[in-house]
């Protein structure tokens, strides 16, 4: 199955990259964007019997740094 892990900075953690992109959007004339936050999406091709618990452990041990990041797991059954 395809598993997508979305990793984002926690609310309140400064995202200078997002801020720069926000500024660039404004420079291009796009109005009405309140804020920009940049994260990453990690796609796993995992065995169908991979447990939710195992996926959660992967996120906590490596894929996300929970000091600064939150993560969300989306599974797409084969």
């Amino acid at each position, binding site marked *: 199955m395809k598993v997508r892990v979305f990793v984002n900075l926690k609310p309140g953690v400064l995202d200078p990259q997002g801020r720069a992109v926000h500024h660039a959007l404004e420079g291009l004339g796009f109005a009405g964007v309140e804020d920009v936050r940049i994260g990453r999406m990690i796609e796993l091709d995992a065995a169908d019997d991979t447990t939710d618990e195992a996926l959660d452990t992967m996120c906590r041990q490596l894929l996300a*740094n929970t000091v600064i990041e939150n993560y969300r797991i989306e599974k797409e059954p084969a």
Partner: protein
Amino acid sequence: MSFRTAVITFPGSNCDRDMAVALKTVSGQAPLRVWHGDAELPESLDFIVLPGGFSYGDYLRSGAMAARSPIMRAVIAAAGRGVPVLGVCNGFQVLTEAGLLPGALMRNAGQTFICRTVALTVENTQSLFTAGYDAGQTINIPVAHHDGNYFADDDTLDRIEGDGRVAFRYADNCNGSRRDIAGLLNAAGNVLGMMPHPERAVEPAHGGTDGRALFESAIKALATA
């Protein structure tokens, strides 16, 4: 006096040789060189150093891959036994990713790579790494990093400041680090992580020698331990 020091090299480390030269210059003894894939450290080490660089190309997050490499399990165990561990720059990032120090090092607030000598204020002079400095002393040490912006939540910051674990602060915050933190000790005081490079300020030819006292302090503590 006899002691055994080691510098760990990860793929992408690039300050390991500078660190080895600094240790030899100050102590007179060349450190052992240890490769990241080794499962065990050399026996009876007295001092372990994680050098600067871009281990694993900074994949995923700076220091994230190195922190999970085989040798780090041995380094974490040694740190738990009280063996002094110094992490500089990427080494500091590895220490936070490995959970030996709290917090995380994020992209510099100004988004740019910063490579210049900065002024630091010495905050803690009780540790084995900083005993050779005077409290409140200003020292000049080079930085060279893109991800040196120290972050921890308010509770963690209050706790580490309350325990006197901030070793160095930036006199003029160059990267957005919370509470100007440039160097941080663990609770037991045997692990120090810092973004500035003391090994680049050891000999007059470096343009300054303010980093020398850090190595002298550590080696003096080993010799008398």
